């Protein structure tokens, strides 16, 4: 989440994380802010935000409403005891609790696993069995400090000394920090490692897509032209060059994005690459145009993959590529009149479609539909909603 916020605002991730931790330690409002961010920012690769799902969750909302009396009780007690900060503390905690309930109820499956496996035990026992003694010690210290603080507070009202209630408040806060501090720290650490693991998995998926689009496609091409040694050498050379530029210059293979600045240029690059490499004519029609962003680059990579597939496997001499840019989104159709295939019967291990097309589009928040039947040609329909263009 911090990573996402950092990406959106351009602030360093560490700074965002430190900000959250400070906010959390300060008043508990950080927890609330984090939870709200969780609600409204969609996960990478997911279409709906948690908020839209939460709003449809009647029972969750009823549960949250049930928390309201609790809040009222706390506020009344705080008022009776003249401890205003307790009241102000209750608000953010109540809100965080409410949002927490909604998150737990509406989390996507892998997030739920994480909440159940990691977060819940931490709330219950604050660590494993060997932490039990440390916990008892911490609670004891906290109780002592907290009771002293409360005592000073209560007596601070009867006396006129102004320093004592402040000291009391500090002691109560110290008690809270002693009890929850380690948990907060481990929570933050856990969140960070969880996000890192996710980033790593995503990186791996992207790499697999790149390898598929370049190396595996070239190997297939080499097998098909095994009786033409010069063609094999040419293909191997080109692949070698591409791999080198990836490994040593960091230019990912099988992509079109960096040679082009707009969608129409990118589509023209796809056309040229496929016509050169595969000797199949690509008929391109582009309606409208727009500058490329990361999502559109992913769309172009998926387009290239679909076009290469059509050139390699369909047997048709012509592939039609149609791209249309509208205000709401970009649509691309790649169509051939070739042999077609049964999309439900793609053998295990041949994952060009799922890896390079579907997963790629999903990561970019777009979608891919493939219409094909043996003998009936193939049409790949890619669409990507356009992000709000911020000036």
């Amino acid at each position, binding site marked *: 989440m911090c990573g996402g916020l950092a990406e959106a605002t351009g602030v360093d991730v560490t700074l965002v994380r430190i900000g959250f931790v400070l906010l959390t330690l300060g008043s508990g409002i950080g927890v609330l802010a984090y939870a709200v961010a969780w609600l409204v920012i969609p996960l990478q690769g997911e279409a709906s935000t948690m908020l839209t799902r939460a709003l449809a969750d009647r029972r969750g909302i009823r549960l949250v409403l049930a928390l309201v009396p609790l809040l009222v009780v706390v506020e009344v007690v705080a008022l009776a005891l003249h401890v205003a900060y307790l009241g102000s503390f209750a608000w953010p905690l109540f809100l965080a609790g409410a949002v927490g309930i909604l998150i737990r109820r509406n989390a996507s499956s892998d997030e739920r696993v994480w909440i159940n496996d990691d977060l819940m035990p931490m709330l219950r026992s604050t660590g494993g069995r060997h932490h039990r003694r440390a916990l008892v010690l911490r609670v004891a210290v906290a109780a002592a400090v907290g009771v002293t603080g409360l005592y000073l507070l209560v007596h601070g009202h009867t006396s006129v000394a102004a320093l004592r209630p402040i000291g009391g408040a500090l002691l109560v806060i110290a008690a809270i920090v002693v009890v929850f501090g380690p948990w907060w720290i481990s929570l933050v650490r856990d969140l960070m490692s969880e996000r890192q693991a996710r980033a790593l998995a995503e990186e791996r998926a992207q790499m697999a897509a790149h390898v598929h689009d370049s190396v595996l496609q070239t190997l297939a091409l080499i097998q098909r032209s095994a009786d033409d040694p010069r063609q094999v050498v040419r293909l191997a050379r080109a692949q070698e060059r591409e791999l080198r530029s990836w490994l040593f210059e960091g230019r990912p293979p099988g992509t079109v994005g960096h040679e082009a600045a707009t969608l129409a240029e990118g589509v023209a690059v796809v056309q040229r690459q496929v016509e050169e490499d595969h000797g199949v004519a690509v*008929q391109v029609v*582009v*309606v*409208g145009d727009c500058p490329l962003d990361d999502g559109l680059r992913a769309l172009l990579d998926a387009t290239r993959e679909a076009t290469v597939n059509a050139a390699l496997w369909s047997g048709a001499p*012509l592939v*039609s590529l*149609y791209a*249309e840019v509208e205000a709401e989104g970009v649509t691309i*159709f790649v*169509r051939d009149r070739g042999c077609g295939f049964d999309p439900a019967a793609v053998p295990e291990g041949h994952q060009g479609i799922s890896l390079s097309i579907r997963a790629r589009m999903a990561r970019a928040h777009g979608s891919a539909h493939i219409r094909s039947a043996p003998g009936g040609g193939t049409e790949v329909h890619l669409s990507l909603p356009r992000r709000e263009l911020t000036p």
Partner: protein
Amino acid sequence: MNAAARLRVFLVDDHAVFRSGVKAELGDVVDVVGEADEVGPAVEMINERRPDVVLLDVHLPGGGGQAVLSGVVPVHPEVKFLALSVSDAPEDVIAVIRAGARGYITKTISGEELLQAVTRVGSGDAVFSPRLAGFVLDAFAGRAGTGPPSAGLDPELDQLSPREREVLRLIARGYTYKEVARDLTISSKTVESHVSSVLRKLQLSTRHELTRWATDRRLV
């Protein structure tokens, strides 16, 4: 097809190789009643022989394909033109269509498709290549609000209906008329009438995207 119903076709193209190629491809089914490689002789012979369909190269020495159109259409409006080009530059395409051509195809078209296109134009329908369909969608895109205020726009002529848009989209995606009809579950005849209506709009609309292309070619 019997001899009486055979289409009379005239070829205008400055490449002799292309002309003989087309004759070889179409000669069995249509009557090629003449050919020309320049604007002047082409106008003269077409007006004299009055063919059903003229296959017209857009890039012709001595004024281009439009010069032939403006020499024939006022005199013999019944002669139908099918424009051919190697390039797909929008200004060329729009210009010949607005000058009166009933269709546009690229020279990479297969012999079978060329014959289909000629027959279709001969029977009074319009022929759009995928690229032309794309241009039209582009020119008629729903950006009426973004351009200069379109005070003089006639909504009847300057906007495509949703159905026409759908048909053009499918053509741009590489669908044949028959495939378009199947996809939209309408008859081929309906597809043809949609395309003809788009052609009419293309020729008569005052949309500035179209007039700009046309004036660039000193047509209007």
